[in-house]
C-alpha cells in the first residue's frame, strides 16, 4: 500500500495544475472580495438563514465544476503523456504493476482532485466571508458566519465525492482506455468514436440510444444523487435549504443505473490496465 503514497505524490509533482488552478480561483475571489464594489441586491433576504448556505454551496460548486473538467483532461493525458515523451520506459523499469499505476491515476482523478477543490473552497469561503463581513458589516452582519451550515456543507462535499466517483466511473474508464490506447490526440479520440457510432445509429437505425445513454450519464448526476433534481432544475437555493435532506442517498444507491454504470466503468478500467500492459512508448 505504501507505494500508492508515492504514486499519488508523483501525480502531484507532475500535475501542478491540481493545486495551481484552485489557488488561482481562490486568489481571484479574494481579490474581488477585497476590492470589488459592495452592493446589496434587494431581492435577497439577508435575514434568512439560507444566505450562509447558498454562499458556501456556490463557492464549492464553482471549484468542483472547474476541477471536474480538469479531472477529465487529466484522465485523457495521464497514460498518454508518458508514452509520448517515452518516460513510460523509466516508470516501467520500477517494480510497480500496471494495475497500481492505472488505479493511482483513477484515485487522483476521482478522489484527490475533488478533495483538493473542496478544501480550497472551504479555505476561500472562510477568507472571503471574513473580508466581506468586515467591509460590509452594516449591511450583512454575520449572515455569512454560520457554523452549522459550514459543517453540513462538509458532509455534502463528502457525499458528492463518493457519489460522483461512482456515477462518473464509466466516463473515467473510457478516458483511461483512450489515454492508454491512442498514438495521438486523446481528446479527439475520446469523442470521435462515440460521434461516429452515434451518426451510424442515427442514419442506419434511426434511433438515438447511444446519445441518450452517454448524455444521461454526463448530465444525469444531479438528478441521480439529489432530491428535487428530477425536475431538471437544480439550483443552489435548494442545496441551501436542507443540505442533509437534499442528498438522495437511498435513491442513488438503489438506482440500477448507478450500479450498471459502475460495473461498466470497472470493466473499462480493467481494459485500460490490459492495454497499458501491452503498450510502451509511441
Amino acid at each position: 500500500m505504501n507505494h500508492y503514497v508515492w504514486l499519488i505524490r508523483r501525480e502531484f509533482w507532475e500535475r501542478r495544475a491540481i493545486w495551481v488552478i484552485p489557488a488561482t480561483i481562490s486568489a481571484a475571489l479574494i481579490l474581488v472580495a477585497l476590492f470589488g464594489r459592495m452592493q446589496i441586491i434587494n431581492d435577497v433576504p439577508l435575514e434568512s438563514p439560507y444566505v450562509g448556505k447558498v454562499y458556501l454551496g456556490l463557492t464549492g460548486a464553482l471549484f468542483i465544476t472547474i476541477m471536474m473538467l480538469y479531472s477529465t483532461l487529466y484522465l485523457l493525458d495521464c497514460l498518454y503523456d508518458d508514452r509520448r515523451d517515452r518516460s513510460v520506459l523509466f516508470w516501467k523499469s520500477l517494480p510497480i504493476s500496471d494495475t497500481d499505476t492505472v488505479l493511482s491515476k483513477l484515485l487522483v482523478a476521482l478522489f484527490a482532485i475533488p478533495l483538493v477543490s473542496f478544501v480550497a473552497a472551504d479555505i476561500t469561503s472562510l477568507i472571503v466571508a471574513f473580508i466581506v463581513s468586515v467591509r460590509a458589516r452594516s449591511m450583512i452582519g454575520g449572515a455569512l458566519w454560520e457554523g452549522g451550515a459550514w459543517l453540513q456543507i462538509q458532509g455534502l462535499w463528502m457525499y458528492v465525492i463518493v457519489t460522483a466517483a461512482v456515477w462518473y466511473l464509466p466516463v473515467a474508464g473510457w478516458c483511461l482506455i483512450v489515454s492508454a490506447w491512442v498514438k495521438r490526440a486523446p481528446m479527439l479520440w475520446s469523442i470521435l468514436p462515440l460521434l461516429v457510432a452515434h451518426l451510424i445509429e442515427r442514419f442506419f437505425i434511426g434511433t438515438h440510444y447511444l446519445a441518450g445513454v452517454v448524455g444521461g450519464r454526463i448530465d444525469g448526476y444531479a438528478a441521480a444523487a439529489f432530491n428535487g433534481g428530477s425536475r431538471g432544475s437544480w439550483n443552489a437555493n435548494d442545496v441551501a435549504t436542507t443540505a442533509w435532506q437534499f442528498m438522495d442517498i437511498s435513491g442513488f444507491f438503489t438506482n440500477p443505473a448507478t450500479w450498471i454504470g459502475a460495473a461498466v466503468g470497472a470493466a473499462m478500467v480493467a481494459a485500460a490496465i490490459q492495454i497499458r500492459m501491452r503498450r510502451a512508448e509511441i
Partner: protein
Amino acid sequence: MALIEARNLCKKYGSHVALDKVNVSIEAGRIVGLIGPNGAGKTTALRAMLGLTTYEGELRVLGREPFRERTALMNDACFIADVAVLPSWLRVDQAIDYVAGVHPRFRRDRASGFLAKAQITGKRRMRELSKGMKTQVHLALTMAIDAKLLVLDEPTLGLDILARRSFYDALVNDYMDETRTIVITTHQVEEVENLLTDAIFIDKGRIVLDLSLEDVAQRFCAVAVAPEKLAAARALKPFYERHALGKTVLYFEAVTREQLNEFGELHTPSIADLFVAKLSGDAS
C-alpha cells in the same frame, strides 16, 4: 539454470517478423552485447525480456515469465531503455525520493554519492539538464539498485564522446562485479568491444552468431593473403573476404592456425570485424 533463457522466441508485428525463433542462453556474471544493425530486432528482444511486450515461445528471465511477472522481475532487474527517458518535469531529488519509495533494493546513499561526483544538484529539473547529465542521473538511479540483471538499450545514443566515455567508465568501475549481469544492445560495436565477455549478433530477427570473447581467438582467424596464394587460401573456405592494401583479408572459422600460417600474417579479428564479416557475408 541460465539467467536468461529463450527458446523459439518469436514476435510479429502484423506481417513483419521482428524475432524469428530466437534461442539464447545468458549466464550470470557476464557482460553480453546484443549487437545488430538498426531494425534487427535487438530492442524487441530486450522488450520481451523486460516484460514490456507479449511474445510467442518460451522465455525465462531470472526464472520468471517476463510479461506475466514484470513487477516481480523489476525487483531484481533494471533497465535503461534509451537515453533521455526521464520526464522533463521531474526534479533530481524527486526522482531519488520516488525510486527510494517504490524500490526495495534502492540505496539512496549510493545514488546521492554518484550524483555529487557528477556535480548534479537535487533541485534541477530534467529539462534543465544536458542529455549527458540526464544519462548520468538515470545511471545513478539505476546503479544504486542492487539488481542481478541490468539491461541497457542503446544507452549512449546521441551522446558526445566525453559523455559516452564517462558512462561506460562508471558502469565498469562503480557497478560491475561478479554478482551482476549486464546486457547491452548497441549498433556501435567498437564502443563496447573492450567491455564485453560475450557477443550475440542479431540480424533480421535471427541470431547470426553467439560466442564468448574468450573463444574468438580459437574459433576465428583472419589472414592477409598475397594475390598469388589466394586460390590456395580460398580452398579452405573463408566465410568473408575484403580487400586491403593490395592484399585480400580472408576470414576463417574453425580452421586451425597451422593450416593458415603459410598464407601470410595471422591475426584475431575484432568483434567489429566479425560483425561486418558475418553480416555482409550472410547478405551475399
